[in-house]
């Protein structure tokens, strides 16, 4: 049966990157549509009327929103190829916990490192690094968060790797020094084709952040 899969996304979004990686891991062919968040398309507004946000996956005309929900959906529909989630309910809950942790804790403090200064930035940096160290603890000595195989938590976390240069430069610290295991893990993930073709270059993200700061009037 022909599946029609469309992804509404923005190239720099770590949430969109999660979906791109998930689709690539499963070998799913899809149409990519770049959105302009300053001028959202009628399709986006129709498919995500509640939040009006990307990413949105449209599968045979039906929309799925929220990146982690989309990744779980992809895993449930195309379950035979490269499963992201384990089969044991406790391990599934454990994986969902860490992906949820990233959303609750890392995105906002990371963004503050880019877009604030002085005390606010220092507080964000402290928060951010504390959370990354917790993540490192969870990774331990495993090659991936999923163990021997790239899994759900890896898909959830790896897009933030493309922001590492931007975080460390804006925040004036060294990711290699603070979180060497995460840096090594990121490089390992980049060796996978699905990740390499879905993640923008760290320099490109940094340039994007600089442009964003300029637009918002932040020096």
């Amino acid at each position: 049966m022909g599946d029609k899969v469309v992804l509404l996304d923005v190239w720099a979004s770590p949430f969109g990157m999660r979906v791109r990686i998930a689709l690539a891991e499963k070998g799913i062919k899809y149409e990519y549509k770049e959105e302009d968040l300053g001028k959202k398309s009628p399709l986006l507004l129709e498919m995500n009327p509640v939040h009006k946000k990307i990413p949105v996956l449209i599968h045979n005309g039906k929309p799925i929103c929220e990146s982690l929900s989309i990744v779980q959906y992809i895993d449930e529909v195309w379950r035979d190829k490269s499963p992201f989630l384990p089969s044991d309910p406790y391990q599934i809950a454990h994986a969902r916990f860490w992906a949820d942790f990233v959303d609750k804790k890392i995105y906002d403090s990371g963004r503050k490192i880019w877009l604030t200064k002085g005390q606010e930035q220092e507080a964000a940096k402290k928060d951010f690094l504390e959370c990354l160290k917790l993540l490192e603890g969870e990774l331990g000595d495993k090659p991936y968060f999923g163990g021997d195989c790239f899994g759900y938590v890896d898909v959830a976390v790896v897009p933030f790797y493309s922001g590492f240069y931007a975080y460390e430069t804006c925040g004036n610290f060294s990711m290699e020094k603070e979180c060497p295991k995460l840096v090594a893990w990121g490089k390992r993930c980049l060796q996978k084709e699905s990740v390499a073709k879905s993640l923008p270059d760290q320099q490109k993200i940094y340039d994007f952040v600089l442009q964003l700061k300029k637009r918002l009037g932040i020096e």
Partner: protein
Amino acid sequence: MAEEVKVFGVWGSPFSCRVKIALKIKGIEYEYIEEDLQNKSSLLLKYNPVHKKIPVLLHNGKPIVESLLIIEYIDETWKDNPLLPQDPHERAQARFWAKFVDEKCLPSLWKACWAEEVERETAMGEAWKNLELFERELEGKRFFGGEAIGLVDIAAIRIAFWINVAQEAIGVEILNKEKFFILWNWIDELLGCSIIKENLPPREKLSAYYRTRAAAAKGSK
């Protein structure tokens, strides 16, 4: 094999209530442990070192945290009386609306409940917008889960009971009965179910708590 199921919660918490309801729907016996959030037990800190919060579900010694994740775990472990649909798209929809309750609906409802006079109209507008979106999802169904209570119903117990009790105690009307009559039909259905009723905190005790808070807020002006 005998299952050992424990729930760490707090009497007035909608989050621990969600877990108790999910376990009851599945017919699972459990031991409930009341936590003092001003003096968290060493067990709680051991089982939820990252967030240090309740609820925690302990199943044969293994902890699961975050109420919505706990419900999914319960659903995947005990298969009777499913709480989530089988179809992947419908499951995604259920997750979406449960998240909407926590991330959009409740913050706007609480803001409207506690708003000062000058901000109330704006806060109410925002809360009503979210309630309208949420109410539309009922689409003539008995529950958000269809014929039976599901994930979204359990998540939205916060609206059906906590906001309901709070607004009465504080003396505001966010969940307006005329405007949201469809939602109120659902609230009445939900609170009429014995499995829900038996697992809610005592209404008068919760109401007294909100009355005290409202008085303190007035007093501090």
